[in-house]
Structures are given as C-alpha cells and as structure tokens.
C-alpha cells in the first residue's frame, strides 16, 4: 500500500533547543499511528511541522507523494491534513454548528461549496462525534469533553484524508475515554481515514494504534507494533528512568502496572 505520509530527517530547533532531531518515519494509508514520548519529547512540535505551523530547519514532509514542507497551514489543510489542538481552541462566540462550518468552508473543498452545503457537512460531522443535539449551543458553554469532540468535528468537516489528534483523550475520565475511542474507531471506518495520535493515556493508544513511534528529547528512539515498543528497553528507560531502578520501584509498589499518568 502507498505511503500517505513520509517524514524525512526532520529537525526543528528553537534557539539552542532541538525539539525534533532527524526524525523520520512513514505511515501507510489507513493506519493508526500512535506518537508517544515523555513531556517535552517534541510530539506537538512534530505535528506543527507536518501542518505547516512551523517550518523545519532540515528535512522534508511528503504527503501523498508531494513535498509540502514549509507550506502555510491553510494550504496544507486544503490538501487533506486536519489537526485537533491539544489545548482546545473553540470559536467561543460562534455556535457549535458554525464552528464546524468553518472546517467545511475552508477544508478540502474550500471555495467549491456554499454555506448551505457547509452546514450539512458540519452537521454530519457533529452527528458522527455525538454533538448534533448541541449544534445550536455556543461553543463556550460546552464541557471539556464536548469541546474535545468539537475539535474533532471541526477537523472532520474539512474532509481530511490524514487526521492528526493531539491528546484528544487528555483530561477525560475512563468512561469518556472509552466513548472517545469508540468514536475515533467509527470515524476512521466511515471516513476511510489515516490517523496519527499523540497520546499519554497508554492503555488507550496501545489498544487502538497499529504502530507506535516513540520520541524522546527530540529523537525517535523506537518504532514498531505496540508490543514491540512496550518491551523496548530504551522506551522503558525514557519513561521511567533507569530500568533497574524502575524495576525496584514496580516491586515496591506491589506491581501496579498502569502506565497512564
């Protein structure tokens, strides 16, 4: 199967800080790729490089065979990449439906659809994430879970082929996480999407992802299936520090193994 996205040797520096250091990976169409790593590993920076918010200092981003490195975000969105924000950014003074309409009007089919058509696309996205009955509410009134789902609906309204989810599960309780995961699976099937998700909720990402890429201090330290990555000593070190110390810590705590933080 063709690669929908290829990230080649991407380096992004902020002054002396190297947020991404020669990161390379590729993903196939239809895949769910988990992007994990401790805080400050450079995950969100990598998303921002892919969506054009930052221009990388080195390296290339190739989407569907086309080099999109350094193109402005709105151009990349129209090519078919949509992103949700880690810190939700709803348009507070607009209704939920109007929020999603922005996605439709300026997404894949920008300038080809009318306001009326955008409304319908937006409404379908809201139905898909379970926000349809809130469509006339103001976005500012939504709960955090609903705002996260609005981010998702807004991104879906752009009709992307590649969806980047930046911690959509963070801040949700276990039941809400289950619901959100179901929605993501459903959305992926119905819209035939490829998805990259940054996630700290380990059991969730280990369950849903086909493959996982691990970043640490800007470097890619591992890549593989969830099992491979979970047993990779470098990954364990990155998350827990010295493995021997980690082992002792686990023993003392009586074997609590929940990786989520």
């Amino acid at each position, binding site marked *: 199967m063709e690669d929908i996205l290829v990230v080649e040797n991407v380096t992004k520096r902020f002054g002396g800080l190297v947020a991404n250091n020669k990161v390379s990976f590729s993903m196939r169409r239809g895949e769910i790729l988990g992007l994990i790593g401790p805080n400050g590993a450079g995950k969100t920076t990598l998303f921002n490089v892919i969506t054009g918010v930052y221009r990388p200092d080195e390296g290339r981003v190739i989407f569907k065979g086309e080099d999109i490195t350094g193109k402005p975000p709105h151009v990349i969105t129209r090519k078919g990449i949509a992103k949700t924000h880690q810190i939700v950014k709803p348009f507070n003074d*607009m209704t939920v439906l109007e929020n999603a309409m922005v996605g439709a*009007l300026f997404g894949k089919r920008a300038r080809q659809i009318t306001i009326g058509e955008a409304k319908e696309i937006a409404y379908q996205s809201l139905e898909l994430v379970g926000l349809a009955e809130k469509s006339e509410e103001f976005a500012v009134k939504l709960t955090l879970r609903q705002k996260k789902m609005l981010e998702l609906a807004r991104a879906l309204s752009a009709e992307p082929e590649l969806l980047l989810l930046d911690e959509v599960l963070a801040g949700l309780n276990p039941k809400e996480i289950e619901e959100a995961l179901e929605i993501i699976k459903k959305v992926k099937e119905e819209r035939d999407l490829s998805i990259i998700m940054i996630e700290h909720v380990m059991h969730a990402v280990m369950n849903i992802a086909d493959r996982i890429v691990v970043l640490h201090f800007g470097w890619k330290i591992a890549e593989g299936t969830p099992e491979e990555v979970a047993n990779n000593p470098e990954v364990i070190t990155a998350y827990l520090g010295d493995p021997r110390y980690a082992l002792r810590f686990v023993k003392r705590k009586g074997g609590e193994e929940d990786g989520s933080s």
Partner: protein
Amino acid sequence: MAGKESTLSHYLRSPTLLIIVFVILGMLVARIMGMSTLDTLMTIMYFMGIALSLNIIMGFAGYVSFGHAVFLGLGGYAYVLLVYFIKPLADLQSLGFGLGAFLVAVLAGLFAAAIAASVGAAVLRLRGAFFAIATIGLDFTALYLMKAIVPELNPEQFFGAQIILPADKIVEKDVVFNAMFLTLIILLAVNYYIRKSPFGVGLTAIKEDEDAAEVLGVPTTMFKIIAFTLAGFFTGMVGALFSLNGGGVDETLFNLGHSIDMIVMIVIGGLGTVLGPIVGSLIYFELYDLLLVHYPGVNLIILGIIVAIVVLFFPEGLIGLLRKYKVKGVRLRDLLE
C-alpha cells in the same frame, strides 16, 4: 434541513435586510420631503459611512484600526488634489447627478486602498494593542507627509496643508448628497454580503482565534489584507466626498478624534454585525447633537462617560445585547445580523 424556497421570499424574511432597506428609503424620503436639512443628512451618512467602513476590519475580523482616520485623510487629499490639478476630473464631477463625483471618489478610494494594501501586509502581522499603535503611527506619518508635500505643490495658493477648492471646481451640495448616498448603499451591500459569505465566516474565525482559523484552512493573512484594504477603500471614498462637501481639505481630517468616532459607533452598536454600525452611528449622531444643544461645553465629557459605561457594562453593544434574547421562541440572534 434545506427546503426549496425562492431567494426573494428568503430575503423578505430577513429583518436585517428590511432594516437596511428601511434606512435607505428613510434617507431618501427625508431628502425628497425636505424633512431634514441637507447638512444633517450628510453628517448622518458620513458617520454611518465611516462606521460601516471600519466595521469590515474591526467588526468582522476583530482588528481595531485605531488610526483609521488616515484613510479619511488620504481619500480627502487624493480627491481634492485630483480635481484641483486635473481639469477633466473637475469637469467630470458635475456630470450625471453625482455619478461623476462618485467616480472621482472611487479613484480617491483606490489611492487609500493602495496604501492600505501595501502597509497591510506589515501592520497586520501585529495583534491587539500593537496593531492599533502601528495604525496610529501610520496616521501621523501620512499627516506629516501631507504637511510637507502639499505646500510645495502650489506655493502661491496653498498655505500649510489646507486646500480650498475654487468655485469652478466644486459641485452643488445635492450632487454630493447623491454620490454619498450611492456610496452608502454600496457599503451597506458589501457589509451584508461579507456577513453572509464564506469570507465573513473566515473573518469571524480570525476574530475568535486566528491560529485555529489558519490551521482550519482559513487563509488568514490574505483575508486580513483584503478586509483592511476594503476598509481603507471605503473610508477613503467617504473622506473624499466629505471633503468635497466642505469645499476643500485640511489636516484635521487626520485627527484621531475621527478614528475614535468610528470605533465608538461600532462599539455602541455592536461588533461583528451589519446592524451594529448602522444603529451605533444613528445613536451616536443623536447623542452628539442632543448633548451639544443641551449641555454645550461639557457635551464631550458626558459623551465620554456614556461611552465608558457602554464599554464596561455592555461590551457587546446594543445589537449584541439584543441578539442574546428570544422573542416568542425565536432567537433574535437568527434575525439580527
């Protein structure tokens, strides 16, 4: 969701459009019946015109152009200099019951728009207070340029930056009225169109969260420059016809007071709507007049206090306030745009 209905009946059911038509007809009737003096109507149209012009960048996109009087001044000077030095344009003014003056005002507006477009790319990178300060800087730069350049153009006739048009280069006031009236109708139409179009949705998204808008596909830089250029163009046209009406131009057209007038009218009426600047300018005009008649001397102090109260307690303005309510189950939000 989308039932078939004719566009005409759709528009007839839009109270916003009805109010706009009512305002236009009202002015026409007042003019024909002689209910108001020409000067009063001109002043109302001037206020409404500058409020609707600034509304395009400030109301829709949320960028407070604090030095917007710069375009008033540029339009005014462009117009007066054009008819002063180019005879065919001076003759054109009186043709077609105001259509000629309107066309020369379009030229003046294009000059203001060209300046707006060329500085827009730079100043629109700034946000909030920094953008406001940059536009004030622009205003002062243009003012001092005019003060330096204008006296050189015709040293025998021009004293300082003031230009008084000779009698053969001005037109009857009712001709100016027609040109201003036409400009205002176009401004109302442009505001309404923007409000209803994807462009307007994009501008509103920029106002709410510019970074999110860009990532969602809104070409933010281009949209901001277009909005700023349109705002400059129409302010320039109004400044041009305002100057023609006064028979000349001087540097007071660049006064920050004009900028504040525009901003206050939009804030009183409500940001981000078409009706806001219309209602705001009418209220502001009445208030201004009333206070001047009844409390001369302290009128501006009282006006200032009223504005402060509005900003503190009703920052969404009159239309914004009304839009929060429902009447008989119908949300006013859907009716007042």
